[in-house]
């Protein structure tokens, strides 16, 4: 029989890749989306099926992780075999500005889903995946970080995700549910939100290349992250729910780069050699013509920074056969290519006298 999956956060980067992946596996896929006044389904536009089509496999439902009754209604209707909780206020910097909302959606949202499973008596049927995060390691207690490394969260986002991590384990142990955490390190793609640093870099450099923008402002250039491709990572989310017993896994590339490295690599893809000068907040990146195209803006510093994250995915390698297919370099190339295409489209539209939005933060 055809399996059913429900994805919260289906309109996000991971949700879109996971939906596509599960549809290809023959799943009937249901997605939860929030009501917004602007369309927010760009990332799943290619998967959309008209409600009048026959043999429909992809369904969207309005709901919200801050609304228990909406979750219970949808869970009752869908009765999913697998539930992927990818919805969240997922931006670390924004969590300092909206800590309570972050707690409500990222911590309580998970609890509401686990409760919906229990209330509907789906403990034995529905397997639950919780999107945990390398941000839990925050001020890292050892390097590289693995499943047994103690947590030290450094933001309201990470504190909320810590709650979700442990409540998922508690429900697994207390109510014998198949529930597990994927502790995913940073994973990027052309579908990454425009305000996340990697996408911000590739998008800005592409626009600078086409003279749609002057300068890229960044926060901590020294921050080091373990970056992989989201497309590889969603496969692991699915695999975690296909095991005999639920277990938590670190998913990472095992490779680390600084934000500055990322800028360099993306620039090279566009044929730009960035020349760095200055230190600290005075550090600037210049192009060959001597024009400043990258600068530091302390506004993007966080009250508490996470300086370095590096994952050790040995357990996932051993038990899930984790072998990421897309290299860091390939990922950066793809992101630059896609953002250049978008910038070219904008440039074309602008040249013909139509309005182009800059979509500043």
């Amino acid at each position, binding site marked *: 029989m055809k399996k059913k999956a429900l994805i919260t956060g289906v309109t996000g980067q991971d949700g879109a890749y996971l939906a596509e992946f599960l549809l290809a596996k023959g799943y009937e896929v249901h997605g939860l989306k929030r009501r917004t006044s602007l369309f927010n389904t760009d990332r799943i536009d290619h998967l959309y099926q008209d409600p009048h089509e026959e043999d429909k496999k992809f369904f969207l439902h309005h709901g919200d992780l801050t609304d228990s009754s909406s979750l219970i209604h949808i869970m009752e209707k869908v009765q999913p075999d697998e539930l992927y909780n990818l919805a969240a206020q997922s931006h670390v910097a924004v969590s300092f500005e909206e800590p309570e909302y972050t707690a409500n959606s990222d911590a309580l949202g998970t609890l509401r889903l686990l409760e919906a499973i229990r209330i509907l008596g789906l403990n034995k049927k529905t397997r639950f995946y919780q999107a945990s995060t390398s941000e839990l390691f925050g001020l890292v207690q050892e390097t590289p970080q693995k499943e047994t490394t103690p*947590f030290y969260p450094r933001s309201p986002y990470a504190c909320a995700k810590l709650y979700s991590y442990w409540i998922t384990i508690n429900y697994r142990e207390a109510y014998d549910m198949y529930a597990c955490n994927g502790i995913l390190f940073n994973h990027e793609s052309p579908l990454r939100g425009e305000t996340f640093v990697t996408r911000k870099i590739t998008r800005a450099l592409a626009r600078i290349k086409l003279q749609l923008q002057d300068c890229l402002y960044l926060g901590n250039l020294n921050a080091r992250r373990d970056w992989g491709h989201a497309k590889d990572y969603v496969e692991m989310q699915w695999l975690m729910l296909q095991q005999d017993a639920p277990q938590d896994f670190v998913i990472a590339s095992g490779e680390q780069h600084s934000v500055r490295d990322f800028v360099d690599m993306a620039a090279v893809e566009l044929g730009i050699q960035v020349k760095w000068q200055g230190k600290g907040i005075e550090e600037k990146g210049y192009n060959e013509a001597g024009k400043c195209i990258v600068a530091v803006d302390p506004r993007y510093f966080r009250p508490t920074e996470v300086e370095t994250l590096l994952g050790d995915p040995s357990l996932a390698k051993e038990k899930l056969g984790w072998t990421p297919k897309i290299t860091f370099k390939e990922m950066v190339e793809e992101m630059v290519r896609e953002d250049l295409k978008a910038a070219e489209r904008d440039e074309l539209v602008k040249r013909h006298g139509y309005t182009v939005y800059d979509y500043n933060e």
Partner: protein
Amino acid sequence: MTTKKALIIGVSGQDGSYLAKLLLEKGYKVTGASRDAMLSSFSNLSHLGILGEVELHSVSLNDFRSVLQVLKKCQPDEVYNLAGQSSVGLSFEMPVETFESISVGVLNLLEAIRFLEKPTRIYNASSSECFGNTEGHPATESTPFRPRSPYAVAKSAAFWQVANHREAYGMHACSGLLFNHESPLRPDRFVTRKIVKTACRIAAGKVKKLRLGNLSVLRDWGWAPEYVEAMWLMLQQDDADDYIIATGQTYSLQEFVAEAFNRLGMDWHDHVEHNPDLIRPTDIQLSLANPAKAERQLGWKAHHAMRDVVRIMIEEELAAQQ
């Protein structure tokens, strides 16, 4: 010297009442907050004879306005957050309320203090439950958490929120990782009070049986009036930090029960019945503490261990039942 002002949130509870008493003795002006100050009887404050000396306000930590309002009104030097759904057992029945009162609550409090930009110091009641099973090694302040109930998970998130506000905004914010601490002011639903109260009633011939869940759990039981002193000490340090507060001695629940019945001249085997309904979906088997840091840095040390706690609770219970 000007009078120091303290705000105790959760003043109607066991710790809130003992802390109010301690701070009044130290010359503080004490303001207490409770969810509904009009409706609450504050029987613990009455019991300690200080009901008239504490200014009382209604505050719900889930409501940012109410938090901001009480802080503006009292302008406290020190805030003690002892509020929140406090029962581990109940947290399995009310997981959302548990999170909202504990975790969202402390977040609102931290944010309101930050917003007011006053050098207000804050103590937050954390819990030994964060550690879960301590697996042979007594927990220290650097032992990783392994929470085993919705209560413990919420307290763990709150612990890190406090640490994050301290590090991100330089606030003088501390968490006290208090192990179990008991007193006659414990409500009946807590197992220690239930044991003492029922054993006294059995001794008086009023009831026959005491029904309990898992007797093999091991806990570190201390004397609540001593523990509130440690809370105060944490806020008197130059640097904010987190501390374990415990006796350092662990006993089984069965030993606690045996001690209580012994004191009353009875054998617990004759009166205790096992009730499997009282077993929690997940429980902590072993809770071990190393309170060395509190002794070294705060000069705090527990003077009462389990047997003293049982003795005093029984004395007070007998006096109350007469």
